């Protein structure tokens, strides 16, 4: 038996790459949209807003045709792997045997639930609990499918259950499944899929919006685009942290692989990633600001936008500054390392962490501005009725205190050299200060000064997580490398606690405020391109990161166990990558347009019946 075959003489790897990436995009869609639809439906039930229910229904309609695309591309992917890489697949099927059956069964389960969820929509209007239950089951199957699929790819990166001497697999399916990188990959992919789902829905709404004739339609799709964007950006905010976690675990799994990723040939891909994500943040902010057009009263805030703009552009620039341009070791050994003064300070991780956090804070700030555009006179906290807001505030406070104080103590208790200790206590002191700021913000909110509370929190986070820690990172780099990883987690913890607390305070503070109507549909045509842009960027980023994740193994099918001895066991250049990902994107969008068009056919029928 041959170890490798070709498909009409084509480069087998590229064939598999393209098919796998297309499959992945559809799978992400089919995973994310049900999560989305179900939440929207649940919110609709809770708030009694019929619009929500209709939106969920419309999304599910898209799903049913996307689901068959997922199945079809998955089948093609399976066949092509078995035909083109038989030896590798023999190894994988030996290892994952039962896992693959469970996968197939889950797929059937998912299909069943999906169609049931969709077709029973109208009948179960009076039994929403059942319908939501089915939706939950659908999501359960979806997530299980994703996790099983992830276990294969993460096994290829960090195989477990291997006899180190012979390289043979001696473990159980469960050991292989729960390999080292499995959970980090699950978390990262799940969140990224939600982002993708949000942006796809946004892009769909944008295209529909641009073709709308009536005012009602316009209002509907404008609103839908807004929701899609909201979900996408919301899920986007924790994504860098999940990515950071995954990256750190890659380092722990294999420092060699970690270095290939961040210091080796793949470090360039992160520059591309930074460009894409930076544009994405710009696009998202642009859309938010454009959305203020719909709101009377937003004039009060538009003047701040140019400053926010400035901050984002600055962050983007720092983020892009590469640390070391000449990349290969050989080149380095020739010319020596000479840093330009800018890249010396802005190019390193400490500075990048700082600006990423600032960018997230700024985007969150624009979102708060957007939210308060249509709010006017507020009701002081002490005059509001009900205990819900107390509960919300205290749950948020308990959680954020747990994050800051808990992590602060765990840093103090970390086993490190005595020389490193003082650096760590500085970091934990910052965490404790943040905890005090959190408490202060809550106290201020309760005594009717919610806005000041928010400012306090923004200020303490920006000063500590961005400014002080950004600078402190350089000190650590010089004196106590070991402390660096605690620093970045601390920055993250501070930013997250600030986001959570400020969001809750915002909700409480404005909960009974006078509002003006949002005029959905009153949105410039141009702004819709921002939604499309976000979706395109997301597809590109997914393609890029897929290339990195897979490429990190270099010339191994299964890292350090099964060598790739095919003629294609080299790393394609970034240029090759952009071509392949571009092609994938074109095919994916062509197929999705078809899917959306197909589902619009039944929509027409429904309308016709209604008349």
């Amino acid at each position, binding site marked *: 038996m041959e170890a490798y075959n070709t498909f009409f003489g084509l480069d087998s790897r590229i064939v598999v790459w393209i098919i796998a990436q297309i499959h992945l995009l559809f799978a992400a869609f089919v995973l994310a949209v049900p999560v989305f639809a179900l939440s929207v439906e649940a919110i609709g039930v809770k708030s009694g807003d019929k619009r929500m229910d209709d939106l969920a229904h419309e999304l599910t309609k898209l799903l049913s045709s996307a689901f068959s695309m997922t199945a079809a591309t998955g089948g093609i992917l399976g066949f092509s792997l078995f035909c083109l890489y038989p030896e590798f697949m023999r190894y994988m099927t030996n290892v994952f045997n039962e896992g693959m059956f469970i996968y197939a069964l889950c797929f059937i389960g998912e299909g069943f639930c999906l169609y049931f969820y969709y077709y029973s929509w109208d009948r179960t209007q009076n039994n929403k609990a059942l319908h939501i239950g089915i939706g939950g089951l659908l999501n359960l199957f979806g997530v299980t499918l994703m996790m099983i699929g992830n276990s294969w790819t993460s096994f290829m990166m960090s195989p477990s259950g291997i006899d180190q001497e012979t390289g043979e697999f001696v473990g159980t399916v469960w050991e292989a499944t729960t390999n080292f990188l499995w959970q980090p990959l699950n978390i990262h992919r799940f969140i990224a899929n939600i982002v993708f789902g949000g942006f796809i829905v946004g892009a769909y709404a944008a295209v529909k919006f641009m073709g709308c004739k009536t005012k009602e339609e316009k209002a509907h799709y404008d609103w839908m685009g807004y929701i899609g964007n909201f979900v996408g950006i919301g899920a986007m905010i924790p994504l860098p942290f999940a990515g950071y976690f995954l990256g750190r675990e890659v380092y722990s799994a294999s420092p060699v692989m970690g270095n290939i990723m961040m210091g080796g040939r793949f470090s360039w891909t992160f520059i591309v990633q930074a*460009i894409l994500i930076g544009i994405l943040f710009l696009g998202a902010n642009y859309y938010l600001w454009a959305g203020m057009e719909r709101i009377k009263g937003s004039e009060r805030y538009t003047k701040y936008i140019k400053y926010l703009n400035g901050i984002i552009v600055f962050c983007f620039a720092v983020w892009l500054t590469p640390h070391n*341009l000449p990349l*290969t070791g050989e080149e380095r050994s020739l010319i020596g390392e000479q840093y330009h003064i800018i890249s010396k300070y802005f190019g390193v991780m400490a500075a990048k962490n700082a600006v990423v956090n600032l960018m997230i804070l700024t985007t969150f700030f624009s979102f708060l501005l957007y939210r308060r555009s249509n709010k006017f006179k507020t009701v002081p906290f002490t005059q509001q009725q009900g205990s819900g807001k107390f509960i919300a505030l205290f749950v948020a406070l308990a959680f954020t205190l747990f994050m800051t104080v808990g992590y602060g103590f765990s840093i103090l208790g970390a086993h490190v050299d005595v020389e490193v200790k003082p650096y760590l206590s500085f970091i934990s002191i910052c965490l404790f200060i943040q905890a005090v700021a959190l408490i202060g913000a809550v106290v201020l909110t309760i005594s009717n000064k919610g806005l000041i509370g928010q400012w306090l929190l923004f200020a303490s986070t920006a000063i500590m997580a961005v400014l002080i820690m950004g600078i402190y990172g350089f000190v650590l780099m010089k004196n106590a490398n070991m402390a660096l990883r605690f620093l970045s987690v601390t920055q993250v913890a501070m930013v997250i606690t600030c986001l959570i607390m400020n969001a809750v305070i915002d909700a409480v503070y404005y909960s009974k405020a006078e509002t003006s109507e949002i005029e959905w549909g009153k949105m410039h045509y141009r702004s819709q391109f921002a939604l499309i842009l976000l979706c395109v960027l997301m597809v590109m980023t997914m393609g890029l990161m897929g290339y990195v994740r897979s490429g990190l193994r270099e010339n191994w099918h299964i890292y350090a166990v099964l060598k790739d001895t095919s003629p294609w066991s080299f790393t394609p250049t970034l240029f090759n990558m952009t071509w392949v990902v571009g092609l994938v994107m074109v095919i994916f969008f062509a197929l999705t347009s078809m899917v959306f068009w197909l589902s619009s056919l039944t929509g027409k029928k429904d309308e016709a019946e209604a008349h």
Partner: protein
Amino acid sequence: MQKSFWYMALFIGILLCGFIYLGSIITKLSGEKGKTTEVATGVTPEGGESIFWGKGQCHTCHSIGSTGSGIRGPNLGDVAARAVSRAEERNAAGASGMTATGYLIESIAQPNNYVVKGFKAEMPYVYKAPIALSADEVKAVIAYLQTQGSEFDIAQIVLPPEIADTGKGGDEGAVAEWKPYVEGDAAVGESLFFDLKGDIACAKCHTVNGVGAKVGPDLSTVAATRSAEYIIESILEPSVVIASGFEPVKVKTKKGKIITGILKEDNDEHVLVMNSAGEVTEIPKGDVKKLKQLKMSVMPPFGNVIKMEDFHNLLAYLLTLK
């Protein structure tokens, strides 16, 4: 719907072009090559240097003096000098009669026996997968480390069995052996090699068993000294690794004439450059204005010229040359 659909398609098209353009400029900037480079080595400090900065991945963690940017491991700038005191420390702790070189060997064979203060025990076993250096490559790297603060002395490098045995069967089970994925016909390959009228005609430049020209290296025993992957790469992308003694150069004379080819000799009197037809040009040293190493091998890349089938026949033939 119609018009907005086309706007959207146009917009996506523009973004796509931007993306591909970005890929192309970064690839140019970074000088990436598609194939992984397998560095030609000898058991010398120079061979070790190229492993250090390449295949061995050492540079991703270690710097040497002010060269490199690896910070996860200690700077190895004067490691050989430091190794003397380290060995004493190890001897005091119970190792028997460890020398400075012995310490260098130990830090590669059993990196966790002694963990340098301030660093984590994360130096990999570089002779095991995934880096998987061969015994000779490890020797070469150690020779290179010896030159960092001391004199190199290959005779002192006696590898412990766990390294010396790598690649001698112990590890083979772990790593599937290389196999061609299409069987070629060596006899057909041989005729392609020597057919001077064909497109392939390797014999225009290479000799096998005394037949052929001498522009490129003699290939009579190529399969004995080179791996199959290396040979494949030499044919498809010859410029990735250029055989030593066949470095391409560009010479600019004072009169402005430009001569490119293989540098055959370069001494105080003259420079000899051989072109791809085997003609040698002599340039008196006084006439040479500039001599520049080129990255493009004189051997043309055959990747786009050669048919799949011919390629495998040719490869089958080359693999018989032992």
